């Protein structure tokens, strides 16, 4: 008895554990905005997926309970007892009726699941967009994100700003996905499922966040050494805040005399081969546009907060912040390093 009892007990515990884990995870995740929980959606595509997934989970839980129940019952009921007489049990070879039952019922379940899924596929993939939809082009790079705003005529990086969308008069954002080098994948779990960015291919996705705030995500397709630190931030702003942000991004760079030396160093080193700063000699396309660098909360593809200390370290020794990143160390002396840092910090 003891041994069999143990089996049932452990199995039961495992099942309870699974349910417990799931519950805890969802409960914990939904309250904390820093956790990109797929079960606390904040945008229509993520919301449709959420509802589908609850339905699929419910069906799977039902199947699990039935089959698991049969398994435990068989183990308890048909285990060989200590008092066994040693005779073989009745030899049963099969039953066509039973086989038919456990073929037809799963087929019906699959049909139902498929129809429910097809509806959501259609709703998300074949959605039509109202006028006033914001167009953004996201370009994946090793290991950072470029965000082009073609309607507004400027380029940002790593932090995607979009306006909040009121369900009554939606202002969704339609994102065209391209890649400059290898495969990447755009994944902000609370806003939408992931879609890959593939070189030589144009993909797209859309979001319509219902609430303002910062939504976290990251690259979800292995893209090389620093795939882990290709982080994503989507900043959802009120209509007014978003317009103000757009206006600030379109402003030209101020030429401050105080940072003239830093600018000179920047223009004279290889920085300009990869980075652009509007209105200057720096026209590189390989790295992020730095015209409004200080409007971003993070640097290095989200690997570090954008403060003076990190910025200086990033220029001095990129490997220290993000080993394997494609930014080279510029070998500047301390004076030039401080000057360039000052210059970059003036780019607001």
């Amino acid at each position, binding site marked *: 008895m003891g041994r069999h009892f143990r089996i049932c007990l452990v199995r039961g515990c495992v099942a309870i554990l699974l349910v417990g*884990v799931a519950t805890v995870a969802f409960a914990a995740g939904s309250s904390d905005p820093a956790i990109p929980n*797929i079960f606390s959606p904040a945008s229509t595509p993520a919301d449709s997926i959420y509802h589908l997934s609850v339905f699929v989970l419910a069906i799977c839980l039902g199947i699990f309970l039935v089959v698991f129940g049969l398994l435990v019952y*068989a183990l308890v009921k048909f285990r060989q007892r200590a008092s066994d007489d040693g005779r073989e049990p009745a030899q049963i070879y*099969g039953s066509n009726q039973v086989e038919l039952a456990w073929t037809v019922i799963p087929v019906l379940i699959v049909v139902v699941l498929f129809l429910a899924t097809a509806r959501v*596929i259609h709703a998300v993939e074949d959605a039509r967009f109202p006028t006033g939809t914001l167009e953004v082009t996201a370009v994946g790079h090793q290991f950072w994100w470029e965000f082009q705003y073609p309607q507004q005529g400027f380029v940002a990086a790593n932090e995607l700003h979009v306006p909040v969308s009121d369900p009554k008069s939606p202002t969704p954002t339609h994102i065209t996905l391209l890649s400059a080098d290898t495969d990447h994948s755009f994944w902000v779990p609370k806003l939408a499922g992931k879609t890959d960015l593939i070189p030589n291919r144009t993909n797209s996705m859309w979001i319509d966040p219902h609430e303002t705030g910062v939504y976290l995500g990251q690259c979800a397709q292995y893209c090389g050494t620093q795939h882990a630190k290709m982080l994503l931030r989507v900043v959802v702003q009120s209509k007014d805040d978003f317009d103000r942000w757009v206006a600030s991004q379109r402003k030209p760079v101020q030429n401050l005399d105080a940072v003239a030396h830093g600018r000179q160093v920047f223009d004279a080193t290889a920085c300009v081969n990869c980075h652009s700063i509007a209105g200057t000699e720096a026209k590189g396309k390989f790295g992020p546009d730095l015209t409004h660098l200080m409007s971003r909360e993070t640097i290095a593809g989200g690997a570090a907060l954008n403060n003076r200390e990190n910025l200086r370290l990033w220029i001095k020794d990129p490997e220290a912040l993000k080993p394997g990143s494609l930014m080279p160390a510029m070998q500047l002396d301390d004076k030039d390093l401080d000057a360039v840092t000052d210059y970059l910090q003036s780019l607001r």
Partner: protein
Amino acid sequence: MSNAESVLKPMTVSPAREHTRPLFDQVHDWIVTVDHKKLGLMYTLYGIVFLVIGGLEATAMRIQLAIPNNHFLSPQTFNQLFTMHGTTMVFLVGMPLLFGFANYLVPLMIGARDMAFPRLNAFSYWMSAMGGIILYFSFIGGSGLYGAGGAPDVGWFAYAPLTSPAFSPGHSTDYWIIGLLVSGVGSIGTALNVVTTVLCMRCPGMTLGRMPLFAWLNLVTSSLVLIVISPLTAAQIMLLIDRYLGGHFFDTQAGGSAVIWMHFFWIFGHPEVYVLIIPGFAFASEIIPVFSRKPIFGYAIMVAATLSIGFLSLGVWAHHMFTIGMTSYANAFFTASTMAIGVPTGIKIFNWLGTMWGGKIRLTVPMLFCIAFLFQFLIAGLTGIMLSASPFDWQLGNSYFVVAHFHYVLIGGLVFTIFAALYYWYPKVTGRMWNETLGRWHFWLFLIGFHLTFDFMHVPGVLGMPRRIYTYEAGRGWEVWNMIISVGVIFQIAGILFWVVNFVWAYFKGKPAGNDPWDAWTLEWSTSSPPPDYNFAKEPVVRSRRPLWDLKHPEDPDWKYE
């Protein structure tokens, strides 16, 4: 019947002969052997050695991920480790282990003296062995040997254009290509051999409908191998052309297509999952009936379900590509075909339950592993259904949920049945019995470790943690889960140690097992343990699916009912 009866009588081989010969002769014997049993054992040992290596690679990754912002491994090393771990487990552990069992058992189960092509068998084994050595030779480059490269770091799926010379200079990707090409030749050779053996070498009376399910399922597996290794080989040759002969198949910078590589890879890669798990089904289909003391429930349906799984598995590959921006029609098609595969898989689970139903279940170590397999494979199947709903996959794909799902299939399903099979056939292969207590320690520790690691691995996936990242920030809600996942590894390793001790101990000190320790019904239990070189002194003749049942129960033989 007289023929079959004679095979039941124990035959004596003299083990003393083996031990008195010089070591050189013994080693030489193993190297030049064309005997299916020796080759089967070599395949199995080869798989087990790489299982340990792949396990150590996984352990290193779990140490790195146990806490956020860990510096145990550099990103370069971590990327090499997950590439080598995946490649090793699929190509150097899964397939060799399963070919090992097929090699050893298929001829014995169908009453043959050897495989159809013994020399092709040896050739295939040594090709596979060479493939593994080439792949692992790449590590030597890491220690600075000029020209040797470095271990590949492109993932086991080696997506273009990461493998192009622009992103993967040097030779590391070449080792991945050549190693797998060479081992692929071996796989095709062995698959051809198994198919031919099953179709042509069955003993008198053993019609296709009387074969043990093990032989049927290995027939399906090997047929799949023949079909699906070719696209991989073709794609790898195209990649070599890209890398060295100026081709542009996958070179996106020159107008090539990254997506074409994905199609090639997954039309191999998905059926490959079934190549691995169907032999697991085969083990369960032999072991569950014996320890339930009943014949397999619905033999014909089990065969039909396996055939339809094999067939359907060729039409589901793009469910690995739900996030690449396919049209809604393509996504719907692959959702439907993937869900459809759940039906025959479900039928199999129900038939195993039907086999246990009304039986007298003996909870021996092999049966415990099979029961855990049923439980875990049920969950793996259900998470598979979740992932088949493509919108759900847009969230869960490439997250730790997927990692948990396929480890549930490959460890919770396959590795558990492999352990069941190792415990079940060990007495036949060595002639000695392992220790029951140590076996149970192995089972329970490994079970606890498995569930700690892989149950909790679903959670960070749901919380947005992608795969293949060497580290993560604190504060995303992932720390606790990753720590538990890593702690589970300790239990798994402890379980494995019990297994190693048990088997090594049993090899030298175990009690003699006799011909038929489990009171089983298939032909391999009719010959001595270990079987003689010629397997059967007289060719067996069978009249039903359970020839030994017929002999043990002449009053109530199976052939009356089949």
